[in-house]
């Protein structure tokens, strides 16, 4: 089921603090307490997701709080992706056969 802020373990206050800092840093405010709670849940979920990305990464990247930490993956995809291409762009094959960059 969905990960909720209160399920995250013994430091819910730290989570709320982190969320408050996020709101200040990225100038976020929410219209209602319900919306605030909903965004806090998403924020918590994203922290867990960042942890997973951190574990998967084989380079030197760091993942964590970003300007998009209060958005779900779906919301983010709708706002910032390139939906027409989702699921793969049309098959292009290998259109360029030349070794020389100046030949199209």
């Amino acid at each position, binding site marked *: 089921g969905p990960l909720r802020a209160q399920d995250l373990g013994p430091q819910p206050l730290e989570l709320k603090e982190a969320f408050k800092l996020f709101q200040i840093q990225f100038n976020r405010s929410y219209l209602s307490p319900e919306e605030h709670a909903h965004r806090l849940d998403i924020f918590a979920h994203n922290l867990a997701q960042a942890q997973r990305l951190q574990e998967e990464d084989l380079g030197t*990247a760091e993942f964590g709080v970003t300007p998009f930490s209060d958005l779900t993956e779906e919301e983010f*995809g709708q706002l910032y992706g390139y939906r027409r291409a989702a699921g793969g762009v049309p098959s292009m094959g290998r259109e360029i056969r030349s070794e020389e960059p100046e030949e199209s």
Partner: protein
Amino acid sequence: VPFSCDWRKVAGAISPIKDQKNCNCCWAMAAAGNIETLWRISFWDFVDVSVQELLDCSRCGDGCQGGFVWDAFITVLNNSGLASEKDYPFQGKVRAHRCHPKKYQKVAWIQDFIMLQNNEHRIAQYLATYGPITVTINMKPLRLYRKGVIKATPTTCDPQLVDHSVLLVGFGSVKSEEGIWAETVSSQSQPQPPHPTPYWILKNSWGAQWGEKGYFRLHRGSNTCGITKFPLTARVQKPDMKPRVSCPP
């Protein structure tokens, strides 16, 4: 291919970081960034072109619902260039009936556009010689990215599912922690060379608050997140003409 190349080090070569806001127009932002940079390094002309004109005059309907870099270049060719960002500013929404390609003076245009080989060595060679190019990648690890070099596998970031276009502006290598460790620890036994992590430098269009001041780095040499799938660039000069400046290391 030089060891490293960073077009950001040429003062004014790269236009400021853009923010696509609530509009899926990475394709237009990447194309605009490509044209701007080529004009800057080829003609020393510091133009900012109109992304909104690309959206309003898009051949494929609502450009805020996504699009392709090649369509942006075709729009530029069809309209004989682009107006300036100042004259035709970004609104973050499409106004198709407002496509007025002849209303404003053109500040930049292109001769044609090409797709490069799907080969990271060739891409680096072209980038260092001719300037930044656009690439389309799988954006999965970017949403929660803060800094550093992302190195993914085809399992963690499918190179076939590319869904985000950005501008490739340079490349380099960083000595990894393991490399430093191997160099130090193994000094008493077998000396091992440090393990550098080669990377690409990419300009995103999610504002300067995201990532490394709007930029990010991807591992180079492993086709991380499908970076080799669609390497496209406009050309603003004849094919044999190189820019006035070379890429700084």
